[in-house]
């Protein structure tokens, strides 16, 4: 396949940045999207130019490092996959592909397609954990009976890899799908109950401080999420937050 790539290039956080056109030929449909970018970078380096910076790590769809807004969608046109699992067979010979960084005030661009998603880490630090003293006589987790339906929902919420596709897709740059998944995975389990009130209040407060927008229930986040995190989690977080606000 021969493709025209329109890639966002930005030297550093202070640079204004712009879209730059690249031509790439002989792209195999079996390549992953990141492999295609690797080939492009090889060609760019051969010419003595600066390669395109982009995030990646496991390339197995589980680490949440890769991002990219491809042809107007987070992680590209495929569903339930991250960019590293997106294959070039999803495109046609002669296509023009826009490749941009995840855009949000809370995700500032560091360079080219790399953004700082540290805001998610700070939200996690605000309450996305269970403080269990494991020294001494820790109880076997299986000794606490949990309804299957709740265990499944908690596990589904826990599959969030924190990639930020929800923020990138949302017209308001809202992080509520991410935060709600992190709140839900504990809210549905007895181990999470002790700190439930503080957790939701602190995480939502941190989310607001980071400058993410408000959710208006468009549902774009759920559609673009590579792990299929459900909007049901946002409704649960809303309930948890409102209940916690009344208590606290």
């Amino acid at each position, binding site marked *: 396949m021969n493709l025209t790539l329109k890639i966002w290039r930005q030297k550093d956080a202070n640079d204004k940045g712009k879209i730059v056109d690249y031509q790439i030929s002989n792209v195999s449909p079996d390549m992953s999207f990141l492999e295609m970018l690797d080939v492009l970078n090889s060609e760019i380096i051969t010419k003595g130019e600066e390669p395109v910076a982009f995030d990646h790590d496991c390339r197995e769809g589980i680490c949440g490092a890769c991002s990219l807004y491809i042809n107007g969608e987070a992680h590209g046109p495929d569903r339930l996959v991250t960019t590293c699992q997106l294959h070039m067979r999803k495109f046609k010979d002669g296509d023009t592909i826009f490749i941009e960084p995840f855009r949000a005030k809370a995700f500032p661009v560091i360079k080219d397609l790399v953004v700082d998603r540290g805001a998610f880490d700070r939200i996690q630090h605000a309450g996305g954990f269970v403080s269990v003293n494991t020294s001494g006589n820790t109880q076997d987790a299986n000794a606490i009976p949990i309804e299957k339906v709740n265990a499944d929902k908690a596990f589904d919420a826990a599959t969030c890899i924190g990639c930020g596709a929800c923020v990138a897709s949302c017209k308001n740059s809202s992080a509520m799908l991410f935060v709600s998944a992190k709140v839900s995975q504990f809210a549905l389990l007895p181990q999470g109950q002790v700190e439930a009130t503080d957790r939701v209040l602190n995480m939502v407060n941190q989310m607001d401080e980071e400058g993410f927008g408000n959710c208006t229930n468009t549902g774009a986040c759920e559609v673009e999420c590579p792990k299929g995190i459900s*909007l049901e989690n946002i409704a649960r977080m809303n309930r948890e937050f409102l209940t916690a606000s009344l208590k606290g």
Partner: protein
Amino acid sequence: MSGILNSSIGRKFAMAISALFLMFFLLQHFAINILSVFSPNAFNEASHFMGTFWAVQYLLQPVLIFGVIFHFVMGFVLELKNNKARQVSYAKNNGAANSSWMSRNMIWSGLAILAFIVLHFIDFWIPEINTKFIDGDMSGLLPNGEFRYYEELTHKFVSPLRVGAYVLAFVFLALHLLHGFNSAFQSVGANNKYTKALKGFSKVYAIGIPLGFIFIALFHHFNH
């Protein structure tokens, strides 16, 4: 508790509560207006009751006006805040791939509804307040001794321009409700086994009620 309205979820909750209240009001408004199609007398009686009963005038009406203003002001505030959350736009954004047009354009359908409410205030509310509270005429009667409400309603739908504006406004209202009805329930935390059924009902309400108002306007326009 005091911090609720300063939080993103609190503001969303407040939007939803005001929306649910306005949707209930809309249903009540429709129930009275549709009477005009079947029985002018029943419409006159219901209108006179709503226009003169103290609890409606001095309790519900102020709450309604507050609800309308709050919903619009909060809607604009949220829109401005949300726009600030993304300072650089995408060169290419395919919103249609993951969300409905209605959900992405609530501010525009909302603005169209606001324009209609201004027209409706000029058409109905200001003359009504003038008659009742400036002129002090609470009788609801015309000089010939008949109730004035049905006559006033049908008179409003003579002009094809006004009828056209009403029809267009209700199309925008339908678009607004197609996203807003369900969204309000999601915002207050109601997403459960009844959500699928609620989505079906929301479509019936969002299309049915505006269509009903359009029917009333066209009915009186062509029967005058």
